[in-house]
């Protein structure tokens, strides 16, 4: 009798969880798309800003420093509001674009610092060797420095990627229907909070854990011979 009630309860809970999952599922691609597009943009911007930070030219160096300081110093949520409600009105940005720009710009500041540090970690003898062979500064960066920097850059960049996936939930605040927004919609329709946020959390967790696996793979791929703990 008692056992039967437990089984009933469990199957009821599973039913709710399944309903939630079915409701949320269509919003998952938006979270993925938002994160991928924003982060790809952030990487390109971050590389440019990171290189600008290392520029010999005073103005470029100073401007890129201001860029990093300003964007790192303002909460992402505020940046989202500013871009959607402030710039968005003028430039006619839709929710998705506003979200992409806010995340891309904000994360590009962090990535720029990571990339700059990764480049600076390479011994100056590597530049001297490459330049003395007649390579241009661009070729030196492209074929000698950056490939070695990747070893240093990949793990923290991966961290930022995972963080940006989680931070994409902030864009729900301007009404973009991604995973977190869908969770709020479900809650306001059916008023089950515990289960709703449990499922939302698990979905994020599954996504971030898969990313961690991917990262481990990348770290192996960009490993440079002769570095790391011997085994």
């Amino acid at each position, binding site marked *: 009798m008692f056992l039967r009630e437990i089984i009933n309860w469990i199957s009821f809970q599973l039913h709710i969880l399944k309903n939630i999952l079915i409701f949320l599922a269509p919003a998952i691609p938006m979270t993925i798309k938002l994160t991928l597009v924003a982060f790809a943009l952030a990487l390109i911007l971050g590389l440019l800003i990171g290189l600008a930070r290392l520029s010999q030219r005073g103005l470029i160096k100073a401007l890129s420093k201001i860029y990093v300081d300003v964007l790192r110093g303002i909460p992402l949520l505020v940046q989202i509001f500013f871009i959607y409600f402030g710039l968005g009105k003028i430039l006619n940005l839709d929710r998705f674009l506003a979200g992409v720009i806010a995340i891309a710009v904000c994360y590009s500041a962090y990535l720029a610092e990571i990339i700059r540090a990764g480049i600076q970690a390479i011994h100056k003898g*590597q530049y001297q060797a490459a330049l003395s062979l007649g390579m241009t500064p661009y070729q030196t960066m492209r074929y000698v420095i950056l490939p*070695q920097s990747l070893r240093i850059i990949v793990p923290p960049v991966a961290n930022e990627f995972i963080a940006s996936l989680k931070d994409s939930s902030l864009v729900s605040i301007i009404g973009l229907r991604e995973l977190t927004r869908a969770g709020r919609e479900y809650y306001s329709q059916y008023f089950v909070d515990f289960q709703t946020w449990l499922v939302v959390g698990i979905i994020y967790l599954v996504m971030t854990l898969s990313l961690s696996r991917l990262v481990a793979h990348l770290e192996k791929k960009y490993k440079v*011979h*002769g570095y790391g703990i011997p085994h």
Partner: protein
Amino acid sequence: MIIQTKEISKRFGEIIALDAVNFEIEAGEVVVIIGPSGSGKSTLLRCLNGLEKTDSGEIVIDGIKLDKDKSSIHKVREELGMVFQEFNLFPHLSVLGNLCLAQEAVRKRSKPDSEKISLELLKKVGLLDKKNSFPNQLSGGQQQRVAIARALAMNPRIMLFDEPTSALDPEMIGEVLEVMKNLAKEGMTMLVVTHEIGFAREVAKRIIFMDQGKIIEEGKTEDILNSPQNPRTIAFLSKVLK
């Protein structure tokens, strides 16, 4: 004259690294530079291939005047190969990759061409069997021989060596010097910063002694080694030759 410098000077803040240095080198000559630590030997070599910009003075290499514009620096670097104390091999590339990279990027050679040239050079420095190894899998002496081969792959007319054996264990110095001696025999113009006096005695035509950014004394190898004139040269040589 394949290398000619006129009154070149270079400061780092308060430090005068080069102080109105003049010298000339003829094609095919092997010249050794000696001098105490901090005397400006490395700075001099780096100025010659534009890795460091001089504050004043003139450098002419194989008829090309080195000045601010990038194309002259580039042309000069094509004439000059440089070998460093710390080898500076590219750790992310195999030995073959180290030799091929600049050939393809700078000389625009095809992959098969640059590989063929690389393999010949590796044979010459006795490291053909290491072509697929990575730098960290080689001994210091082997790394330095790869670095020499890498510089030679660009067909330089002049080779600059900055203390090529100073970072090596004693038992590996010989193998690197051997490669350098062979190069000298083939008629390569070489400017070598080294404290290997035996090497100087055997292959150098002239020795330049530097101290505090200046050339204090220069002359025929046997003259400098057997009867140095300047007291500073005498003091330095007595330490090195002891």
